[in-house]
């Protein structure tokens, strides 16, 4: 029974839903809820990025650019022009998707390090623009963002709400909302992976030439997944902005892009549950290291380096392989 459960393609989704439902039982203050919400936001972002990096095998070192564009579109439109948050973040995602579509075609012709270079450059241009256009974005100091109002409800981490007769704090409400977003995000990604599009993407990862020989329109599929991952980033960027209530250009910066890619690689490229794990780890790690004060940066670099050296395939796939080996050995011993 356990076997059939682990093999069904949506079993990962069920497991994820159970984890999301159980986590609040272990949290006991608003700060911890907010950290958990942050994990969910980053997790959903990198589930999208994983489609590009893990499945299609294309490097992006500028993905925070899309995250930042979504965040700033929501921030500027809702605060300066009084637009309603939900339509704004959807329109923002559509625009970011369009931008990704336009730059994607020429950029994705590049391979390996050149693709890394081009995406890095794209991210930097977005970051520099956000920094310099202070009249619109507040410059390096950042800008405040209004709360997320849905159907007239303003969802703020400072309020409490009653829902079906239960009292729910704003922090918890945000947690549930982002939990639903993550499940939706994983569900869409899973469906994409298991569709003909997903098979085409994996063939691109395996060998682009072989893929095009058997008739896969590789530029089209690469561009499609680039747009999809940009839309994930933009939506989550918008939600991040509303959740934090404040945004700075750093959220579109180079380090943020690197952290996104690291979440994917550290968790395990091509493993949806793995990258969620990676997102959780890299979001919480700075919190854990904060106690080391001056040594924080050094420790962070060291941990990054060591995990990648000793587990180049990522934490989850390495652990899975380890467990499988153990189980295999046990079965052999019995026989």
């Amino acid at each position, binding site marked *: 029974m356990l076997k059939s459960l682990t093999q069904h393609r949506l079993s990962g989704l069920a497991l994820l839903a159970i984890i999301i439902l159980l986590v609040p039982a272990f949290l006991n203050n608003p700060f911890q809820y907010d950290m958990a919400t942050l994990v969910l936001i980053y997790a959903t972002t990198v589930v999208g990025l994983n489609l590009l990096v893990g499945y299609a095998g294309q490097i992006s070192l500028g993905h925070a650019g899309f995250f930042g564009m979504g965040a700033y579109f929501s921030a500027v439109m809702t605060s300066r022009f009084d637009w309603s948050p939900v339509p704004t973040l959807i329109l923002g995602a559509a625009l970011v998707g369009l931008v990704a579509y336009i730059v994607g075609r020429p950029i994705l012709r590049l391979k390996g390090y*050149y693709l890394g270079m081009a995406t890095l*450059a794209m991210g930097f241009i977005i970051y520099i623009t956000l920094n310099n256009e202070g009249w619109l974005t507040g410059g390096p100091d950042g800008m405040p963002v209004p709360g997320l109002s849905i159907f007239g409800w303003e969802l703020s981490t400072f309020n409490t709400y009653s829902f079906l007769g239960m009292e729910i704090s704003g922090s918890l409400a945000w947690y549930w909302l982002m939990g639903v977003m993550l499940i939706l995000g994983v569900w869409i990604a899973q469906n994409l992976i298991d569709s003909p599009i997903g098979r085409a993407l994996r063939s691109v990862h395996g060998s682009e030439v072989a893929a095009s020989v058997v008739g896969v329109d590789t530029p089209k599929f690469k561009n499609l997944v680039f747009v999809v991952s940009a839309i994930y980033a933009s939506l989550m960027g918008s939600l991040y902005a509303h959740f934090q209530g404040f945004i700075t250009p750093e959220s579109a910066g180079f380090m943020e892009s690197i952290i996104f890619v690291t979440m994917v690689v550290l968790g395990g490229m091509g493993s949806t549950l793995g990258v969620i794990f990676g997102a959780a780890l890299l979001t919480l790690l700075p919190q854990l290291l904060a106690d080391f004060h001056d040594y924080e940066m050094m420790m962070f670099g060291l941990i990054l380096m060591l995990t990648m050296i000793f587990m180049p395939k990522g934490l989850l796939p390495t652990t899975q392989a380890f467990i499988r080996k153990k189980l295999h050995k046990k079965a052999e011993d019995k026989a």
Partner: protein
Amino acid sequence: MFSEFLQYLFTGITIGATYALIALGFTLIYNASHVINFAQGEFLMIGGMATVSLIGLGFPLPVAMVGAILLAALMGIALQRFAIAPAKQADPVTLIIITIGAAIFIRGIAQLVWGRGYHSMPNFSGDVPVRIGGAVVNTQTFWVVGIAAVLVAGLVFFFTKTMIGKAILATSMNKVAARLVGIKTDMVLMLAFLLSAVLGSIAGIIVAPITFTSYDIGIMLGLKGFVAAALGGLGSGMGAIVGGLTLGIVEAMTAGYISSDYKDAAAFGVIILVLFFMPRGLMGARVVERV
């Protein structure tokens, strides 16, 4: 009008020569191991910071410089031995993250040792600028361009005339074949990192009097070096020099004529444009992809 242009040109060549040295460091390591070393900028930081602090301890400038270069060289070897060599079979993305982890680690140590402040280094020879055709030129410019030229000439000699240089070239062309003719490819990899670290630290030292130095200058300088290397074409020594100078001049002209806020954006814009039309940079090898 013309003097203004000349002024920007000199600024561009100075910073461009530095970028060229960083790009050459990238090229050396890339050729030997197909790794893009995102910790390259940290060699510059170590070069500048160690020199400043050794001068602070009372050592004369040349001694301080040698000390800083030795420190960076040690770091280069350590990076290869302890971070790159154990991860031989890793994906390019994984290697990128390892070198970035190394960069953050080094930066973290530098921040512990030297703090977060900016440090200045005196010019090598006096603060009285020289006037050329109406442009005011800092004396350090001559040191930067001169030392960069000497280093490039030295590298050309090293790779074409010495046995060790030829061994590195052979390894970069075909590692297995190089090992078959008796080249110790492991040593070659270490040597490439060492040379790259020496180049980087010298670049960091000569540019420090112009730009100031602090624990975090390595990020941007390293990235610019990567842009320069990709602009010229990864793996091409000539490309690194052309890419570096082009990048420096584009930046200086943008800062002078358009806006200094967007000089970095211009550098990144140029690389995207060039890659659109020449996907392997200006002088990259036109290799046929093997299936």
